[in-house]
C-alpha cells in the first residue's frame, strides 16, 4: 500500500462554511473502515495534489490529522471565477454540509454541530432583498443580513469603471489632437483643388457638405476597424491573463454597446475635425487658394 501522499494547506470552502485543512491523497485503498463520502476537488487542487476522480483523500482540520476523515473524489470542478481573488490560487474542495460539520464539530461545544458561517436565501421576488434584510435584522439583532447584489456605494468595480472612463477620455482628447493635425495637413494638400472647385462655381456650403460626408465615411471606417481590432485584442488579452492567473475569469469583454459607444464618439469627432480643418481654407478668398 504505497501511498502517494501530498500535503499542503488549502482553503476549504463548502457552501458557506470555511475551514483550513490538509489533503492527503492516497492512490490505493482507503484506511478508513467506513465507505468514503464524496468530495469535489477544484481543478487547481487536483493538479497541485495529483488527485484524480475516484482517488481517496484524507481531510483533517489540523496538520497532525487528529480529526482525519476519508473522502472519495467524485468530480473535479472549475471554481466560479472571482474578480476579487483572481490572483489567489483556487485550492478548494466541496463536501456536503453534514460531512463538513462532522469533520469540524467540537465535542466540547454542542452548538458547533449546528453552526454555519452563512445562510444563503433565495427570495421569491429579488426586488424584496432590501426589505427582507431590514426585517430580518430587526427580528434577530446581531445577525448581519445583506443582499448579494453589489452595494451602490463602496463598490470597488464602480471605482475601476470611473478610472477606466477617465483614461478613455484622456485617450480621446489625445487622439483628437492628432486627428486635427492630420486633417490640417490633408486640407493643406487639397488647397489648390478646393480653389479650382471654387473657381468652377461650387459653393462653400457644397464643399463643406462634401468634406463632412467624407469625414463620416472615414471616421465610420476607422471606428469599425478600431472595434474589430478591439474584438481581436479581447481574445488575446483574455488568453494571456487567463493563462497567467490560471483562471476562467473574463478580463476584457467588448460588448456591442461598447463598440456602438466608441463609434458614436468617433464619428462626430471625425466630422468635426474634418470640417474644422477645411473651414480654415474655405473661408479664404478664391485667389488666395489658387495662389494668385
Amino acid at each position, binding site marked *: 500500500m504505497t501511498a502517494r501522499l501530498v500535503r499542503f*494547506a488549502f*482553503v476549504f470552502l463548502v457552501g458557506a462554511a*470555511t*475551514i*483550513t485543512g490538509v489533503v492527503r491523497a492516497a492512490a490505493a485503498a482507503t484506511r478508513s473502515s467506513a465507505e468514503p463520502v464524496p468530495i469535489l476537488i477544484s481543478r487547481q487542487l487536483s493538479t497541485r495534489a495529483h488527485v484524480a476522480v475516484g482517488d481517496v483523500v484524507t481531510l483533517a482540520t489540523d496538520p497532525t490529522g487528529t480529526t482525519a476523515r476519508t473522502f472519495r473524489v467524485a468530480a473535479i470542478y472549475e471554481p466560479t471565477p472571482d474578480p476579487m*481573488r*483572481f*490572483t*489567489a490560487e483556487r485550492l478548494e474542495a466541496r463536501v456536503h454540509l453534514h460531512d463538513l460539520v462532522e469533520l469540524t464539530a467540537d465535542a466540547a461545544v454542542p452548538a458547533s454541530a449546528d453552526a454555519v*458561517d452563512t445562510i444563503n436565501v433565495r427570495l421569491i421576488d429579488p426586488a424584496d432583498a432590501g426589505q427582507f434584510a431590514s426585517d430580518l435584522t430587526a427580528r*434577530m*439583532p*446581531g*445577525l*448581519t443580513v445583506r443582499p448579494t447584489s453589489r452595494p451602490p456605494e*463602496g*463598490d*470597488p468595480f464602480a*471605482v475601476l469603471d*470611473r*478610472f477606466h472612463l*477617465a*483614461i478613455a477620455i*484622456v*485617450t480621446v*482628447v*489625445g*487622439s*483628437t*489632437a*492628432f486627428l*486635427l*493635425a*492630420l486633417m*490640417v*495637413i*490633408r486640407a*493643406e*494638400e487639397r488647397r489648390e483643388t478646393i480653389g479650382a472647385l471654387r473657381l468652377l462655381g461650387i459653393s462653400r456650403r457644397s464643399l463643406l457638405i462634401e468634406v463632412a460626408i467624407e469625414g463620416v465615411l472615414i471616421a465610420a471606417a476607422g471606428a469599425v476597424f478600431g472595434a474589430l481590432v478591439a474584438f481581436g485584442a479581447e481574445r488575446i*488579452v483574455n488568453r494571456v*491573463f487567463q493563462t497567467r*492567473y490560471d483562471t476562467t475569469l473574463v478580463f476584457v469583454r467588448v460588448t456591442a454597446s461598447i463598440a456602438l459607444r466608441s463609434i458614436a464618439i468617433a464619428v462626430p469627432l471625425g466630422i468635426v475635425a474634418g470640417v474644422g480643418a477645411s473651414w*480654415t481654407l474655405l473661408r479664404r478668398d478664391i485667389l488666395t487658394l489658387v495662389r494668385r
Partner: protein
Amino acid sequence: MTSAWLAWRTTTRYRARSALAMIGVAVISALLFDMLLLSHGLVDSFADLLEHAGYDVRVLSTEGVPLLRAPIPQAAELAVAVGQLPEVESVARVRFERAVVTTQGRPDVDVALLGTTATGTHAAWTLLKGAELPNDPSLERCPLIVAQRLATAWALVPGSTVSIRATLPGRQSALPAVGCRVVGTADFLFASADEYDVATTMQGLREVKGGAADDEADLVLVASRPQAGPAAAVRAIAKLRPDLRVYSNEDVVAQFNRNGFAYFRQVSVVLSSMTVVFAFLLVGTLLTVSTNQRLGEIAALRALGIGRPRIASMLLYESALLVGGGGVLALPLGGMLAFGLDRILRQMPGVPERLHFFVFAPGALVLHLALLAATAIIAASYPIWLTARLPIAPTLRHEVVG
C-alpha cells in the same frame, strides 16, 4: 544652415499642425508617464507606510490573505520570548475588533477598534492632540485614541467620554457598552476613508469585550536591532516558533506586489505599451504625411547640394521637436492627471487614506524620457528612408511640371 535650424523653420512654418501634434504627444505622454508612476506607485507607497509604523517584522499565525481569522494564542508569552532575542529591539501585540461607539444625542457609529501595546514613535498613528496611550495599562481602564475625523464629527477632545460595545462577526452579542475616556486624537496610518479607527490598550480591549481573559493577538509587530537587521530577526523568530509565519516588511511588500497589486501592474503594463505604440504610430504618420507633402521642397534642397545625412538629421530633429515639446508639456500635465486618477482610485473601499497609487519616482521619469526618445527615433525612421531614396530630378519635374 544647420539641420536643427531647418527643422525649427519647418516646425514654426506649419504652426497649427505642429501645435496640434505637440498637444497630442503631450496628452498621450502624460498618460504614459502616469502609467509608469502607477507601475510602482502603490507598492512604494505601501512600503513607505509599513516603514513609517516603525516595525520591520510581522508575526502571524497563518500565511496569505486574512480570509480566516486565526489569532495567535498566548501572545503575551510569545512577545516576552521574542523580546528576549538578541536580534530584537522591541515587540508589540495588536488585536483588531469591530465595535460600535455610542454617545448621547448622536447615532451609533461602527469603528475599527485596535487594541495594542505599541505606543509613542512605534504606534501606527501620528498623535495630533492629547496624550499617547499609557505605558502602564493599570493606570486607566479604557483609554482611547480616536481618529481625527471621528473627533471632528463628534466634537471629541481629550477628556471626552464615549461608550464602546464590541460586535462579534457572525454572532449575536449582548456585550454591555463600556465607558472609555478619549486621551488623544490622531491621524491613523492605515485608516481608510470609509471607516473610523479607534485605538486602545490591550487591557482596554479586554474591558470592551466583557473582561474576557483571552491572551490572543492578530499580529505581533517586531522592531529589529539596527545592527542585526530584519532578516536576522525573521530567522531568529522563525527558529523560536516554527509554527508561526514571520515576515519582514520586504516580504510583505513582495507578497503585496504579487497578489494585491497585480491588477494595477497589469493595467500599467498594458496601457504603457499601448500609449508608446500609439505615440509612435501617430508621430510616424504625421511625419510621413508631412514629408510626402514636402517632397518637392526636399528634392530642391538636395538639388542645392544638401546631402542625405543632413536631410535625415533634419527629419530626426523635427521628430525630436514634436516629441520633445510634447514630452516637456507631458510632465506637468501628467502630474495633474495623476492627481485626478489617484483621487478616483483612492475611493476604493478599505484603501488607507495615506496610500497613493501614483508616486513620483526618478526611475519612472528616466524611463519615460527614454521611451519618448526611442519613439522620436523610430517614428522618424520611415520618412528618413523615404527621403534617402528620393530621386531628385523626377521628383522636381513631377512637383513643378506636374
